[in-house]
């Protein structure tokens, strides 16, 4: 299999901050429709890997190929337009806009200055937004200012804002962190539904949640891959046990 057959091929990815290599010569490949979970102890470089893929941080060396195009040379908004969506660790939504407006701004259209000036809210736009709101359990909150949502609802809203863009690769950074048990269950259900037709990279600590959704798990440690494979293989890997339980 050549690297072009993968949706995402990360090869030799390295970034150093002032001499410290947060991510060190990292390579991994993600298939279409694959759900990949990245785990690892604090400071392993998990979030930095997502930052590198979506262009928030510029790589020192290495390549990130997505559907054959090189992401490391593109700016953030171009990467998004290529089909990569990213959810941040803390809910990142527009607090001063309503839920409806949050979703509307996230629609993948009229993203240029002139487009935004000429944009007109059409019937189909409203319907699309209402459908997504239904999916993220916020159908009756559309008129509410986003800052008044609960923490879990904010997480859902951000997931909805990504869904509406229909990305081919969705990256989620700890999507259930800080949620109540019932919110967790609904989120797992939501993620199972939305991950059907796309590749997903998830960072998560909750092993129950990971078992539930992961096709393949990558364990990071000190910026390098420690282990990779299905969940059982990883959980029985002595190196992984050493890192998590050792010392």
């Amino acid at each position: 299999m050549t690297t072009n057959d993968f949706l995402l091929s990360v090869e030799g990815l390295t970034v150093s901050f002032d001499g410290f290599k947060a991510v060190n010569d990292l390579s991994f490949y993600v298939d279409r429709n694959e759900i990949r979970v990245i785990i690892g102890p604090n400071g392993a470089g998990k979030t930095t890997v997502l930052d590198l893929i979506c262009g928030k941080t510029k790589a020192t060396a290495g390549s990130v190929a997505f559907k054959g195009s090189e992401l490391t040379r593109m700016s953030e908004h171009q990467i998004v337009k290529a089909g990569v969506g990213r959810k941040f660790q803390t809910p990142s939504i527009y607090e001063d806009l309503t839920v409806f407006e949050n979703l509307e701004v996230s629609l993948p259209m009229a993203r240029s200055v002139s487009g935004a000036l000429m944009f007109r809210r059409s019937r189909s736009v409203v319907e699309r937004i209402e459908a997504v709101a239904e999916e993220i359990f916020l159908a009756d909150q559309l008129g509410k200012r986003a800052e008044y949502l609960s923490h879990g609802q904010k997480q859902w809203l951000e997931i909805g804002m990504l869904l509406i863009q229909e990305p081919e690769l969705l990256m989620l950074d700890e999507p259930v962190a800080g949620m109540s048990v019932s919110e967790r269950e609904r989120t797992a259900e939501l993620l199972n539904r939305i991950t059907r037709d796309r590749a997903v990279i998830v960072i998560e600590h909750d092993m129950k949640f990971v078992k539930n959704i992961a096709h393949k798990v990558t364990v990071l440690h000190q910026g390098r891959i420690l282990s990779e494979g299905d969940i059982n293989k990883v959980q029985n890997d002595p190196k992984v046990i050493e890192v998590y339980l050792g010392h």
Partner: protein
Amino acid sequence: MFDGYTASQLMSIFAMQGFAGLILFSVFLLMALGLAIIFGQMGVINMAHGEFMILGAYVTFLTSNFFQSNLPHFFGGYFFFAMAFAFLAAGALGYALEWVLIRHLYRRPLDTLLATWGVSMILQQVYRSVFGAREVGVVLPDWLMGSYQVTDMIDVPINGMFVMALTATITAAVFALMFRSTWGLQVRAVTQNRVMAGAAGINGKRVDRLTFALGCGIAGVAGSAFTMVGSTGPTAGQLYIVDTFLVVVFGGAQSLFGTIASAFAISQSQSTMEFFLSGSMAKVLTLLTVVGILLLRPQGLFVVKVRK
């Protein structure tokens, strides 16, 4: 603009103007140190910093008058007292301002910018009511007058060297305080993670207030130095505030070393160009260069790459 000068003349001009620029360098550096500490620590843009400097200058003026009329024998030493008083007065005012206003505005830099601009207008009016609109100047003691002749073309002004030595001492003290003392450790801890620092038993509010007072106190000392280059008036501080902010930004707001380098570069280029061009054009060219470089390198001259 160098037409008609020989190489050796040019060398002498650069040297002379360089020494003449030392006091400006000192004023910039002391002002910028205070601003950089306050901004780095609390995210506060203190637009009234120039007025704190002018407070120091007025205190120096008052001290000089007092010594002249009451203690003429000790007049030669008044400057040291003036500096101490200037530091205390400006520091006390800063302490009070932090308590009344600034502490409500942490991490809202744009708001502090506007509010402290209001403070600066009020202080200007207070100075005008108390000291009058006329500018005042201080008399320098004899030992600070005159200059030391290095070659027949280069004079080194003694007050410049004195202020320079003073600034070096204060800068070194600030460095020691920030990077060697327990208190500096607390300041840096609060800067990096306020909540964790609080959990570790550091009183963040007290650290903030003292930091702000310290920054303002240093501005007061800058005011003492300022009396040697300019005359003190109610609005004199405003003329320096933009330049000083450029010094801070140009040096990279997080880097004290950068602040020193950029204060030196800006004061020296201004001083040198003033010989060849009119004062206003020298200033325009200096500021334009700085802004131009900042547009190309917005993070300032000296910054380290960190994950944000």
